[in-house]
């Protein structure tokens, strides 16, 4: 059995978990076994709908205390559930919560772990999973040596596969250990698209000169429905919040489209974004190293190019 942990944020199932579900379903098919989802907490989604991403069965432990992340608690419950259903592989989304829980679960199951997996394992001869290493500058093929395996699949690398089925939901009734941490304050990022989930990202660097100039970037992001990111010096100087800092020492993302505006393309920056499917670079310096990593480039002044691009997108959207 492949068991997929379905994570939630604010009682909603995230896209990264649906991707993990589809990954788990494909893996189960490859291994010739069943696949089930495990949901902890109270979620607003209709759980039978997880069938549309590949689940045959959904195990649900409905309890409000599980809505916020408590790694000690969650990993214990997930590991127990995995043992109960004889899971041979447990799959997580390699998102913030999945990354935190998966290693603890692997310890509890005495399972080998690969986080940041980028594709289905090769099971012809053993169980070899490819993952990104060196912040995206290379891939490593990792053999998992243990009977039970734990995999956290990178966001936006496998995609959500549409299935035409509905899953059966089984409510679990197991006692919940006491929480190890107490949440005292929650600050949601309101209305913004979380960077790691976004398929379109618009990012700005020092070339934008100052925080007062971010309007043109935000307009572009809005026209596309994109999330916003920035280079490290931009967040270091508080022009933009820390959670927008992408790169080797920030967060690593792999959207379908990354538009870099006024960013030189230093190696540490590229490390966080080079897995993006398509990269557009807007920079006034034709020698900027970022152009070497780009699919499309515009050599020009961001203050002219970006508003023009926004207009062109709005025009395209209004005629589409």
């Amino acid at each position, binding site marked *: 059995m492949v068991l997929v942990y379905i*994570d939630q*944020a*604010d009682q909603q199932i*995230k896209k990264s978990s649906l991707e993990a579900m589809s990954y788990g379903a494909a893996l189960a098919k490859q291994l010739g076994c069943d696949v089930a989802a495990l949901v902890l907490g109270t979620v607003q989604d209709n759980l039978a709908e997880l069938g549309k991403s590949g689940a045959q069965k959904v195990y649900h432990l409905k309890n409000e205390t599980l809505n916020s*992340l408590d*790694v*000690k608690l969650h990993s214990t419950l997930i590991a127990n559930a995995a043992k109960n259903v004889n899971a041979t592989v447990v799959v997580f989304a390699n*998102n*913030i*919560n999945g990354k935190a*829980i*998966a*290693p*603890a679960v*692997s*310890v509890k199951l*005495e399972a*080998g*772990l690969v986080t940041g997996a980028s594709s289905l394992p090769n099971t012809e001869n053993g169980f*070899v999973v*490819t993952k990104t*290493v*060196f*912040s995206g500058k*290379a*891939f*490593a*093929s990792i*053999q*998992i*040596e*243990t009977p039970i395996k734990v995999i956290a699949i990178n966001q936006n690398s496998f995609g959500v596969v549409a299935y035409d089925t509905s899953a059966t939901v089984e409510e679990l009734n197991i006692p919940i250990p006491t929480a190890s941490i107490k*949440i*005292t*304050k*929650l*600050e*949601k*990022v309101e209305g913004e698209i*979380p960077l790691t989930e976004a*398929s379109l990202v618009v990012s700005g660097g020092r070339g934008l000169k100052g925080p007062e100039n971010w309007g043109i970037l935000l307009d572009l992001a809005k026209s596309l429905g994109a999330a916003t990111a920035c280079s490290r010096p931009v967040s270091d100087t508080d022009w933009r919040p820390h*959670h927008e800092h992408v790169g*080797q*020492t920030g967060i*690593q993302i792999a959207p379908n*489209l990354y538009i870099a505006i006024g960013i030189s393309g230093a*190696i*540490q920056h590229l*490390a966080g974004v080079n897995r993006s*499917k398509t990269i557009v670079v807007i920079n006034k310096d034709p020698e900027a190293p970022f*152009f070497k990593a*780009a*699919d*499309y480039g515009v*050599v020009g*002044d961001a203050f*002219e*190019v970006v508003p*023009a691009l926004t207009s062109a997108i709005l025009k*395209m959207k209004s005629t589409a």
Partner: protein
Amino acid sequence: MKILVCISKTPDTTAKIAFTEGNTKFDENGVQWIINPFDEWYALVKAIELKEKDPSAIIHLVTVGTADAEPIIRKALALGGDEAIRINSNSNDSFYVAKQIATIAKEGSYDIIFTGKETIDYNSASIGSMLSAILDLPLVSLANQLDLNGNTATVRREIEGGEETCEVNLPVVISCQKGMAEQRIPNMRGIMAARSKPLKVLEPIEASATTSIKKFDIPVAKSGVKLVDPANMDELVRLLKEEAKVI
């Protein structure tokens, strides 16, 4: 209060990433080694800040690595920390490393165990979480702020879709990221003092690796940039829609 800071050695961020022996080994030729930035800038400096507030606090550093990890451990000691422990072993598998550190952690009965959010080479982000499971301690991951009040830590952390503040009783494992502290540069006094700080070398305990690396690959380079006339953004939109099919 006793604090344990986990320190990892990683290639410099500008190091050329290449592989040898039929792409099975990282090519260390000419590579400069640094303290993993998340360990140095956030975990270690936060521990030092706590000691500045409470001078009775004791900071131990631990690394799993062979003798060539000593320069970076000395550098860490120059920033701060009272003594360091090096477990004399390769560090190829996260579980193996976590087992080694857990042994030290158990013996030292630390109140706080700090790790960085991940290493910049293998990016597994697993040691903190594994330690918490082996030691049966709470974990606060991706912490970006921490205040101590007696036996309770108030920690702000990143979660999916936002941030939250939580309270947790010590002992606890905390993985640190940006915001937690500010990078510091070691000063001359620190560098001198580090020379005489104890650096204990211990042999690893028996533990089996759960994974092994079979090979490495370098992603295929982009085929070349297509330049678009800055006066023709309609063309860029067309390319993104029809050629790249991303919007």
